[in-house]
Protein backbone atom coordinates (compact mmCIF):
# COMPACT_ATOMS: atom_id res chain seq x y z
CA UNK A 1 0.00 0.00 0.00
CA UNK A 2 1.19 3.50 -0.80
CA UNK A 3 -0.09 6.49 1.16
CA UNK A 4 0.41 10.10 0.15
CA UNK A 5 -0.06 12.61 2.97
CA UNK A 6 -0.27 16.41 2.62
CA UNK A 7 1.96 16.45 -0.44
CA UNK A 8 3.02 19.81 -1.85
CA UNK A 9 5.35 20.41 -4.75
CA UNK A 10 6.50 23.75 -6.14
CA UNK A 11 8.89 24.71 -8.89
CA UNK A 12 10.41 28.05 -7.88
CA UNK A 13 7.30 30.17 -7.26
CA UNK A 14 4.83 27.95 -9.08
CA UNK A 15 2.85 25.54 -6.93
CA UNK A 16 2.14 22.41 -8.97
CA UNK A 17 0.75 20.08 -6.29
CA UNK A 18 -1.35 21.32 -3.41
CA UNK A 19 -2.18 19.19 -0.36
CA UNK A 20 -2.57 15.79 -2.02
CA UNK A 21 -3.85 13.06 0.32
CA UNK A 22 -4.63 9.62 -1.04
CA UNK A 23 -4.17 5.89 -0.55
CA UNK A 24 -3.25 3.38 -3.26
CA UNK A 25 -4.21 -0.17 -2.29
CA UNK A 26 -2.45 -3.50 -2.79
CA UNK A 27 -3.59 -5.79 -5.57
CA UNK A 28 -5.58 -3.01 -7.23
CA UNK A 29 -5.06 -0.93 -10.33
CA UNK A 30 -4.95 2.62 -9.02
CA UNK A 31 -5.36 5.34 -11.65
CA UNK A 32 -4.32 8.97 -11.53
CA UNK A 33 -6.29 10.95 -14.09
CA UNK A 34 -6.48 14.61 -15.00
CA UNK A 35 -6.08 17.06 -17.83
CA UNK A 36 -2.69 17.78 -19.36
CA UNK A 37 -0.83 20.15 -17.03
CA UNK A 38 -2.93 19.23 -14.00
CA UNK A 39 0.11 17.84 -12.15
CA UNK A 40 -0.46 14.09 -12.43
CA UNK A 41 2.99 13.39 -13.89
CA UNK A 42 4.60 15.53 -11.17
CA UNK A 43 2.61 13.57 -8.57
CA UNK A 44 3.80 10.29 -10.08
CA UNK A 45 7.41 11.52 -10.11
CA UNK A 46 7.11 12.60 -6.47
CA UNK A 47 5.73 9.18 -5.55
CA UNK A 48 8.54 7.29 -7.28
CA UNK A 49 11.20 9.66 -5.96
CA UNK A 50 12.28 11.28 -9.23
CA UNK A 51 11.13 14.62 -7.73
CA UNK A 52 11.54 15.57 -4.08
CA UNK A 53 8.28 16.95 -2.66
CA UNK A 54 8.37 20.46 -1.18
CA UNK A 55 6.60 18.99 1.86
CA UNK A 56 4.50 15.97 2.76
CA UNK A 57 4.93 12.23 3.10
CA UNK A 58 4.98 9.32 0.67
CA UNK A 59 4.61 6.10 2.67
CA UNK A 60 5.46 2.73 1.14
CA UNK A 61 3.88 0.27 3.58
CA UNK A 62 4.67 2.75 6.34
CA UNK A 63 8.19 3.67 5.13
CA UNK A 64 8.46 7.35 4.29
CA UNK A 65 10.27 7.89 0.99
CA UNK A 66 11.02 11.54 1.77
CA UNK A 67 12.96 10.91 4.98
CA UNK A 68 14.67 7.67 3.90
CA UNK A 69 18.47 7.46 3.93
CA UNK A 70 20.36 6.50 0.77
CA UNK A 71 20.58 2.81 1.61
CA UNK A 72 16.86 2.50 2.43
CA UNK A 73 15.99 4.37 -0.75
CA UNK A 74 18.20 2.06 -2.78
CA UNK A 75 16.50 -0.99 -1.30
CA UNK A 76 13.05 0.47 -1.90
CA UNK A 77 13.85 1.17 -5.55
CA UNK A 78 14.53 -2.51 -6.05
CA UNK A 79 10.93 -3.14 -5.00
CA UNK A 80 9.69 -0.81 -7.75
CA UNK A 81 9.02 -1.42 -11.41
CA UNK A 82 8.12 1.31 -13.83
CA UNK A 83 6.64 1.42 -17.29
CA UNK A 84 7.46 4.70 -19.01
CA UNK A 85 5.39 6.54 -21.60
CA UNK A 86 8.08 5.90 -24.21
CA UNK A 87 8.75 2.35 -22.91
CA UNK A 88 12.37 3.54 -22.30
CA UNK A 89 13.93 0.27 -23.42
CA UNK A 90 17.70 0.40 -23.79
CA UNK A 91 18.11 0.59 -27.55
CA UNK A 92 21.59 -0.95 -27.58
CA UNK A 93 20.25 -4.16 -26.04
CA UNK A 94 17.96 -6.90 -27.34
CA UNK A 95 14.55 -7.41 -25.75
CA UNK A 96 15.93 -10.34 -23.70
CA UNK A 97 18.93 -8.29 -22.56
CA UNK A 98 16.60 -5.46 -21.57
CA UNK A 99 14.56 -7.78 -19.38
CA UNK A 100 17.70 -9.37 -17.98
CA UNK A 101 19.24 -6.00 -17.13
CA UNK A 102 17.71 -5.57 -13.64
CA UNK A 103 18.50 -9.24 -12.93
CA UNK A 104 22.12 -8.81 -14.05
CA UNK A 105 22.38 -5.77 -11.81
CA UNK A 106 20.73 -6.98 -8.64
CA UNK A 107 20.08 -10.72 -8.73
CA UNK A 108 22.56 -13.19 -7.25
CA UNK A 109 21.22 -16.00 -9.46
CA UNK A 110 23.50 -17.67 -11.99
CA UNK A 111 23.30 -16.84 -15.69
CA UNK A 112 21.03 -19.75 -16.61
CA UNK A 113 18.54 -18.84 -13.88
CA UNK A 114 18.56 -15.20 -14.91
CA UNK A 115 17.83 -16.13 -18.53
CA UNK A 116 15.07 -18.46 -17.33
CA UNK A 117 13.48 -15.72 -15.24
CA UNK A 118 13.70 -13.17 -18.10
CA UNK A 119 12.13 -15.67 -20.50
CA UNK A 120 9.37 -16.37 -17.98
CA UNK A 121 8.58 -12.64 -17.82
CA UNK A 122 8.65 -12.34 -21.60
CA UNK A 123 6.40 -15.37 -21.90
CA UNK A 124 4.02 -13.79 -19.40
CA UNK A 125 3.59 -10.80 -21.73
CA UNK A 126 3.51 -13.06 -24.83
CA UNK A 127 6.74 -11.75 -26.25
CA UNK A 128 9.04 -14.75 -26.12
CA UNK A 129 9.32 -14.91 -29.90
CA UNK A 130 10.79 -11.38 -30.04
CA UNK A 131 13.47 -11.94 -27.40
CA UNK A 132 16.41 -11.58 -29.81
CA UNK A 133 15.06 -8.46 -31.51
CA UNK A 134 16.15 -4.89 -30.79
CA UNK A 135 13.57 -2.33 -29.59
CA UNK A 136 13.54 -0.51 -32.93
CA UNK A 137 12.63 -3.77 -34.69
CA UNK A 138 9.37 -4.27 -32.79
CA UNK A 139 6.07 -2.34 -32.67
CA UNK A 140 5.09 0.22 -30.03
CA UNK A 141 2.74 -2.26 -28.32
CA UNK A 142 5.47 -4.89 -28.21
CA UNK A 143 7.88 -2.35 -26.75
CA UNK A 144 5.37 -1.60 -24.00
CA UNK A 145 4.99 -5.32 -23.29
CA UNK A 146 8.77 -5.72 -23.18
CA UNK A 147 8.94 -2.79 -20.75
CA UNK A 148 6.30 -4.48 -18.56
CA UNK A 149 8.37 -7.68 -18.61
CA UNK A 150 11.44 -5.68 -17.54
CA UNK A 151 9.44 -3.93 -14.83
CA UNK A 152 8.29 -7.22 -13.28
CA UNK A 153 11.61 -9.06 -13.68
CA UNK A 154 12.64 -8.49 -10.06
CA UNK A 155 9.16 -9.33 -8.80
CA UNK A 156 8.42 -5.78 -7.58
CA UNK A 157 5.89 -4.86 -4.89
CA UNK A 158 5.04 -1.59 -6.58
CA UNK A 159 4.40 -1.02 -10.28
CA UNK A 160 4.14 2.45 -11.82
CA UNK A 161 2.90 3.10 -15.33
CA UNK A 162 3.16 6.52 -16.92
CA UNK A 163 0.62 6.84 -19.75
CA UNK A 164 0.97 3.19 -20.79
CA UNK A 165 -1.41 3.58 -23.74
CA UNK A 166 0.03 6.69 -25.29
CA UNK A 167 0.67 6.21 -28.99
CA UNK A 168 -1.13 2.86 -29.13
CA UNK A 169 -4.25 1.90 -31.09
CA UNK A 170 -7.42 1.13 -29.04
CA UNK A 171 -7.09 -2.62 -29.43
CA UNK A 172 -3.45 -2.73 -28.33
CA UNK A 173 -4.34 -0.35 -25.49
CA UNK A 174 -6.86 -2.87 -24.21
CA UNK A 175 -4.25 -5.64 -24.35
CA UNK A 176 -1.81 -3.50 -22.33
CA UNK A 177 -4.52 -2.51 -19.81
CA UNK A 178 -5.59 -6.11 -19.30
CA UNK A 179 -2.00 -7.22 -18.97
CA UNK A 180 -1.25 -4.62 -16.29
CA UNK A 181 -4.43 -5.51 -14.43
CA UNK A 182 -3.79 -9.27 -14.59
CA UNK A 183 -0.19 -8.87 -13.45
CA UNK A 184 -1.28 -6.63 -10.58
CA UNK A 185 -3.71 -9.25 -9.31
CA UNK A 186 -1.40 -12.20 -10.02
CA UNK A 187 1.62 -10.73 -8.18
CA UNK A 188 -0.46 -8.77 -5.63
CA UNK A 189 1.32 -5.52 -6.47
CA UNK A 190 0.39 -1.93 -5.73
CA UNK A 191 -0.03 -0.52 -9.21
CA UNK A 192 -0.39 3.16 -10.01
CA UNK A 193 -1.23 4.18 -13.56
CA UNK A 194 -1.01 7.71 -14.80
CA UNK A 195 -3.42 8.10 -17.71
CA UNK A 196 -5.96 10.22 -19.50
CA UNK A 197 -7.29 7.33 -21.54
CA UNK A 198 -10.97 6.98 -20.64
CA UNK A 199 -11.08 3.40 -21.93
CA UNK A 200 -8.53 2.51 -19.25
CA UNK A 201 -10.55 4.36 -16.62
CA UNK A 202 -13.70 2.44 -17.47
CA UNK A 203 -11.88 -0.84 -18.04
CA UNK A 204 -9.46 -1.28 -15.13
CA UNK A 205 -10.05 1.71 -12.82
CA UNK A 206 -10.54 0.12 -9.42
CA UNK A 207 -9.36 3.17 -7.52
CA UNK A 208 -9.32 6.46 -9.44
CA UNK A 209 -7.77 9.72 -8.29
CA UNK A 210 -8.80 12.81 -10.26
CA UNK A 211 -6.32 15.68 -10.08
CA UNK A 212 -7.52 19.17 -11.00
CA UNK A 213 -5.07 22.08 -11.12
CA UNK A 214 -2.72 20.41 -8.65
CA UNK A 215 -5.19 19.29 -6.00
CA UNK A 216 -7.23 16.15 -5.39
CA UNK A 217 -10.66 16.81 -6.81
CA UNK A 218 -12.23 13.38 -6.55
CA UNK A 219 -11.41 9.77 -5.64
CA UNK A 220 -13.50 6.67 -6.24
CA UNK A 221 -13.98 3.60 -8.44
CA UNK A 222 -15.04 3.28 -12.08
CA UNK A 223 -18.57 2.42 -10.95
CA UNK A 224 -18.83 5.55 -8.83
CA UNK A 225 -17.62 7.73 -11.71
CA UNK A 226 -20.86 7.15 -13.63
CA UNK A 227 -22.97 8.52 -10.81
CA UNK A 228 -20.61 11.28 -9.73
CA UNK A 229 -22.06 14.77 -9.39
CA UNK A 230 -18.66 16.48 -9.41
CA UNK A 231 -18.90 18.96 -12.28
CA UNK A 232 -15.18 19.20 -13.00
CA UNK A 233 -14.85 15.42 -13.08
CA UNK A 234 -17.89 15.07 -15.30
CA UNK A 235 -16.72 17.70 -17.75
CA UNK A 236 -13.37 15.83 -17.97
CA UNK A 237 -14.75 12.29 -18.17
CA UNK A 238 -17.67 13.03 -20.43
CA UNK A 239 -15.84 15.40 -22.75
CA UNK A 240 -16.22 12.91 -25.59
CA UNK A 241 -19.54 12.19 -27.27
CA UNK A 242 -19.13 8.47 -26.78
CA UNK A 243 -18.92 8.61 -23.01
CA UNK A 244 -21.79 11.14 -22.81
CA UNK A 245 -23.96 8.68 -24.72
CA UNK A 246 -22.86 5.81 -22.48
CA UNK A 247 -23.85 7.86 -19.44
CA UNK A 248 -27.21 8.76 -20.92
CA UNK A 249 -27.82 5.12 -21.84
CA UNK A 250 -27.01 4.11 -18.26
CA UNK A 251 -29.61 6.53 -16.95
Amino acid at each position, binding site marked *: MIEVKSLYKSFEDKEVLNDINCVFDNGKTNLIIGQSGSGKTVLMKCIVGLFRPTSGEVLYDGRDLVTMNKQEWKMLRRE*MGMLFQSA*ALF*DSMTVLENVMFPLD*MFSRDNYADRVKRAQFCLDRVNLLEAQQKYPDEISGGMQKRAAIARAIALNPKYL*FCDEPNSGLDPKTSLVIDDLIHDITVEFNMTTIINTHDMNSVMGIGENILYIYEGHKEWQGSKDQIMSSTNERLNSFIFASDLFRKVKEANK
Partner: protein
Amino acid sequence: MLFYKSVATFGRYLMLMRRTFSRPERMRMFFKQYIKEMSQQGVDSIGIVLLISFFIGAVICIQIKLNIESPWMPKFVTGYTTREIMLLEFSSSIMCLILAGKVGSNIASEIGTMRVTQQIDALEIMGVNSANYLILPKVLGMMTMMPVLVCFSIFSGFVGAYATAIIGHIITVDDLTLGLQHEFNEWYVWMGFIKSIFFAFVITSVSAFYGYTVEGGSVEVGKASTDSVVSSSVLILFSDVLLTQLLS
Protein backbone atom coordinates in the same frame (compact mmCIF):
# COMPACT_ATOMS: atom_id res chain seq x y z
CA MET B 1 25.91 36.83 -14.23
CA LEU B 2 28.13 34.89 -16.63
CA PHE B 3 30.59 34.20 -13.80
CA TYR B 4 27.79 32.97 -11.54
CA LYS B 5 26.47 30.72 -14.30
CA SER B 6 29.94 29.30 -14.98
CA VAL B 7 30.52 28.56 -11.30
CA ALA B 8 27.09 26.92 -11.04
CA THR B 9 27.80 24.76 -14.11
CA PHE B 10 31.20 23.76 -12.73
CA GLY B 11 29.54 22.87 -9.42
CA ARG B 12 27.02 20.65 -11.18
CA TYR B 13 29.87 19.04 -13.14
CA LEU B 14 31.72 18.25 -9.91
CA MET B 15 28.58 16.78 -8.35
CA LEU B 16 28.09 14.57 -11.39
CA MET B 17 31.72 13.45 -11.21
CA ARG B 18 31.24 12.61 -7.53
CA ARG B 19 28.37 10.32 -8.48
CA THR B 20 30.36 8.93 -11.41
CA PHE B 21 33.47 8.01 -9.46
CA SER B 22 31.87 5.66 -6.97
CA ARG B 23 32.13 1.90 -6.69
CA PRO B 24 30.17 0.16 -9.48
CA GLU B 25 27.09 -1.82 -8.37
CA ARG B 26 28.24 -4.93 -10.22
CA MET B 27 31.87 -5.25 -11.31
CA ARG B 28 30.85 -7.80 -13.95
CA MET B 29 28.52 -5.27 -15.61
CA PHE B 30 31.13 -2.53 -15.26
CA PHE B 31 33.84 -4.54 -17.02
CA LYS B 32 31.40 -5.48 -19.77
CA GLN B 33 30.68 -1.80 -20.37
CA TYR B 34 34.36 -0.88 -20.00
CA ILE B 35 35.43 -3.30 -22.74
CA LYS B 36 32.56 -2.12 -24.94
CA GLU B 37 33.55 1.52 -24.51
CA MET B 38 37.23 0.80 -25.19
CA SER B 39 36.12 -0.72 -28.46
CA GLN B 40 33.54 1.93 -29.31
CA GLN B 41 35.54 5.01 -28.36
CA GLY B 42 39.08 3.77 -28.87
CA VAL B 43 39.33 0.94 -31.40
CA ASP B 44 36.76 2.58 -33.67
CA SER B 45 38.89 5.75 -33.71
CA ILE B 46 42.06 4.02 -34.90
CA GLY B 47 41.13 4.45 -38.57
CA ILE B 48 40.64 8.20 -38.41
CA VAL B 49 43.76 8.61 -36.24
CA LEU B 50 45.91 6.67 -38.72
CA LEU B 51 44.50 8.54 -41.71
CA ILE B 52 44.89 12.05 -40.32
CA SER B 53 48.30 11.39 -38.76
CA PHE B 54 49.64 9.89 -41.98
CA PHE B 55 48.81 12.98 -44.01
CA ILE B 56 49.83 15.45 -41.31
CA GLY B 57 53.19 13.63 -40.93
CA ALA B 58 53.69 13.85 -44.67
CA VAL B 59 52.64 17.51 -44.87
CA ILE B 60 54.89 18.54 -41.95
CA CYS B 61 57.81 16.83 -43.62
CA ILE B 62 57.16 18.57 -46.96
CA GLN B 63 56.59 22.00 -45.38
CA ILE B 64 59.70 21.86 -43.23
CA LYS B 65 61.84 20.67 -46.13
CA LEU B 66 60.57 23.34 -48.53
CA ASN B 67 60.41 26.28 -46.12
CA ILE B 68 63.54 26.01 -44.06
CA GLU B 69 65.89 24.57 -46.66
CA SER B 70 69.22 26.32 -46.48
CA PRO B 71 72.83 25.34 -47.06
CA TRP B 72 73.51 26.25 -43.44
CA MET B 73 70.83 23.93 -42.13
CA PRO B 74 71.79 20.28 -41.42
CA LYS B 75 69.90 17.78 -43.59
CA PHE B 76 68.44 15.94 -40.61
CA VAL B 77 66.45 19.02 -39.48
CA THR B 78 63.40 18.01 -41.49
CA GLY B 79 63.12 14.60 -39.84
CA TYR B 80 64.02 16.03 -36.44
CA THR B 81 61.35 18.74 -36.61
CA THR B 82 58.73 16.29 -37.91
CA ARG B 83 59.44 14.02 -34.95
CA GLU B 84 59.29 16.81 -32.38
CA ILE B 85 56.01 18.19 -33.74
CA MET B 86 54.41 14.75 -33.87
CA LEU B 87 55.61 13.75 -30.38
CA LEU B 88 55.10 17.02 -28.57
CA GLU B 89 51.93 18.46 -30.00
CA PHE B 90 50.19 16.75 -32.88
CA SER B 91 49.77 13.18 -31.62
CA SER B 92 48.75 14.23 -28.13
CA SER B 93 47.04 17.63 -28.26
CA ILE B 94 45.83 18.16 -31.84
CA MET B 95 44.75 14.54 -32.16
CA CYS B 96 42.74 14.95 -28.94
CA LEU B 97 41.11 18.06 -30.39
CA ILE B 98 40.05 16.00 -33.39
CA LEU B 99 38.83 13.19 -31.15
CA ALA B 100 36.88 15.71 -29.08
CA GLY B 101 34.77 16.18 -32.22
CA LYS B 102 34.32 12.49 -32.91
CA VAL B 103 34.15 10.92 -29.46
CA GLY B 104 32.76 13.95 -27.60
CA SER B 105 29.77 14.44 -29.87
CA ASN B 106 29.15 10.70 -29.85
CA ILE B 107 29.06 10.55 -26.04
CA ALA B 108 26.96 13.69 -25.61
CA SER B 109 24.37 12.62 -28.17
CA GLU B 110 24.22 9.02 -26.88
CA ILE B 111 23.70 10.01 -23.24
CA GLY B 112 21.49 12.97 -24.22
CA THR B 113 19.20 10.70 -26.23
CA MET B 114 19.04 8.29 -23.30
CA ARG B 115 18.02 11.24 -21.11
CA VAL B 116 15.22 12.52 -23.36
CA THR B 117 13.86 9.01 -24.04
CA GLN B 118 13.69 8.39 -20.25
CA GLN B 119 16.24 5.55 -20.36
CA ILE B 120 18.23 7.29 -17.62
CA ASP B 121 15.05 7.67 -15.53
CA ALA B 122 14.48 3.94 -16.03
CA LEU B 123 17.96 3.21 -14.65
CA GLU B 124 17.35 5.48 -11.66
CA ILE B 125 14.00 3.84 -10.90
CA MET B 126 15.69 0.45 -10.91
CA GLY B 127 18.08 1.77 -8.26
CA VAL B 128 21.08 1.92 -10.59
CA ASN B 129 23.52 4.82 -10.19
CA SER B 130 23.07 5.95 -13.80
CA ALA B 131 26.04 8.34 -13.78
CA ASN B 132 28.34 5.59 -12.57
CA TYR B 133 26.92 2.97 -14.94
CA LEU B 134 26.96 5.17 -18.04
CA ILE B 135 29.83 7.59 -17.59
CA LEU B 136 32.57 5.78 -15.64
CA PRO B 137 33.21 3.06 -18.29
CA LYS B 138 33.37 5.75 -20.98
CA VAL B 139 35.86 7.88 -19.04
CA LEU B 140 38.10 4.97 -18.02
CA GLY B 141 37.77 3.27 -21.41
CA MET B 142 38.92 6.37 -23.27
CA MET B 143 41.69 7.09 -20.74
CA THR B 144 42.96 3.54 -21.33
CA MET B 145 42.79 3.75 -25.10
CA MET B 146 44.11 7.27 -25.63
CA PRO B 147 47.83 6.43 -25.15
CA VAL B 148 47.35 3.59 -27.62
CA LEU B 149 45.86 6.05 -30.11
CA VAL B 150 48.80 8.40 -29.50
CA CYS B 151 51.19 5.53 -30.36
CA PHE B 152 49.27 4.82 -33.56
CA SER B 153 49.30 8.52 -34.41
CA ILE B 154 53.06 8.88 -33.92
CA PHE B 155 53.74 5.76 -35.92
CA SER B 156 51.39 6.77 -38.72
CA GLY B 157 52.89 10.29 -38.86
CA PHE B 158 56.35 8.80 -39.32
CA VAL B 159 55.03 6.49 -42.03
CA GLY B 160 53.59 9.59 -43.76
CA ALA B 161 56.98 11.30 -43.53
CA TYR B 162 58.68 8.24 -45.00
CA ALA B 163 56.08 8.23 -47.79
CA THR B 164 57.23 11.71 -48.84
CA ALA B 165 60.78 10.41 -48.91
CA ILE B 166 60.09 7.17 -50.75
CA ILE B 167 57.28 8.25 -53.08
CA GLY B 168 57.75 12.01 -53.34
CA HIS B 169 61.58 12.04 -53.14
CA ILE B 170 61.35 15.26 -51.06
CA ILE B 171 64.08 14.03 -48.74
CA THR B 172 66.30 10.97 -48.66
CA VAL B 173 65.32 8.11 -46.40
CA ASP B 174 68.72 8.27 -44.67
CA ASP B 175 68.37 11.99 -43.84
CA LEU B 176 64.86 11.44 -42.55
CA THR B 177 65.92 8.47 -40.42
CA LEU B 178 68.86 10.44 -39.04
CA GLY B 179 66.52 13.31 -38.14
CA LEU B 180 63.97 11.06 -36.50
CA GLN B 181 66.70 9.52 -34.34
CA HIS B 182 68.61 12.72 -33.59
CA GLU B 183 68.81 13.50 -29.85
CA PHE B 184 65.73 11.48 -29.07
CA ASN B 185 64.31 12.32 -25.65
CA GLU B 186 62.12 9.52 -24.29
CA TRP B 187 60.39 11.88 -21.87
CA TYR B 188 58.62 13.56 -24.81
CA VAL B 189 56.75 10.32 -25.47
CA TRP B 190 55.71 10.05 -21.83
CA MET B 191 54.70 13.71 -21.88
CA GLY B 192 52.44 12.99 -24.84
CA PHE B 193 50.89 10.03 -23.00
CA ILE B 194 50.29 12.05 -19.82
CA LYS B 195 48.73 14.92 -21.74
CA SER B 196 46.55 12.59 -23.80
CA ILE B 197 45.26 10.77 -20.70
CA PHE B 198 44.29 14.10 -19.17
CA PHE B 199 42.63 15.21 -22.40
CA ALA B 200 40.77 11.88 -22.63
CA PHE B 201 39.31 12.61 -19.20
CA VAL B 202 38.33 16.12 -20.29
CA ILE B 203 36.68 14.95 -23.53
CA THR B 204 34.66 12.13 -21.99
CA SER B 205 33.64 13.76 -18.71
CA VAL B 206 32.68 17.11 -20.24
CA SER B 207 30.74 15.48 -23.09
CA ALA B 208 29.01 13.12 -20.67
CA PHE B 209 28.07 16.09 -18.47
CA TYR B 210 26.46 17.93 -21.39
CA GLY B 211 24.59 14.80 -22.47
CA TYR B 212 23.50 13.85 -18.96
CA THR B 213 22.06 17.29 -18.18
CA VAL B 214 20.04 17.68 -21.39
CA GLU B 215 16.48 18.88 -20.91
CA GLY B 216 14.01 18.87 -23.78
CA GLY B 217 14.11 17.04 -27.10
CA SER B 218 16.20 16.37 -30.17
CA VAL B 219 17.11 20.06 -30.67
CA GLU B 220 18.59 20.22 -27.17
CA VAL B 221 20.48 16.96 -27.75
CA GLY B 222 22.02 18.47 -30.88
CA LYS B 223 22.91 21.63 -28.97
CA ALA B 224 24.43 19.61 -26.13
CA SER B 225 26.51 17.71 -28.65
CA THR B 226 27.85 20.94 -30.18
CA ASP B 227 28.42 22.56 -26.77
CA SER B 228 30.32 19.52 -25.54
CA VAL B 229 32.71 19.67 -28.51
CA VAL B 230 33.27 23.43 -28.11
CA SER B 231 33.77 23.23 -24.33
CA SER B 232 36.08 20.24 -24.38
CA SER B 233 38.12 21.77 -27.22
CA VAL B 234 38.56 25.04 -25.33
CA LEU B 235 39.46 23.15 -22.15
CA ILE B 236 42.00 21.04 -24.05
CA LEU B 237 43.64 24.17 -25.46
CA PHE B 238 43.81 25.86 -22.06
CA SER B 239 45.07 22.80 -20.25
CA ASP B 240 47.58 22.13 -23.04
CA VAL B 241 49.31 25.40 -22.19
CA LEU B 242 49.36 24.55 -18.49
CA LEU B 243 50.46 20.94 -18.95
CA THR B 244 53.17 21.84 -21.43
CA GLN B 245 54.54 24.42 -18.98
CA LEU B 246 54.27 21.95 -16.13
CA LEU B 247 55.79 18.92 -17.87
CA SER B 248 58.52 20.58 -19.95
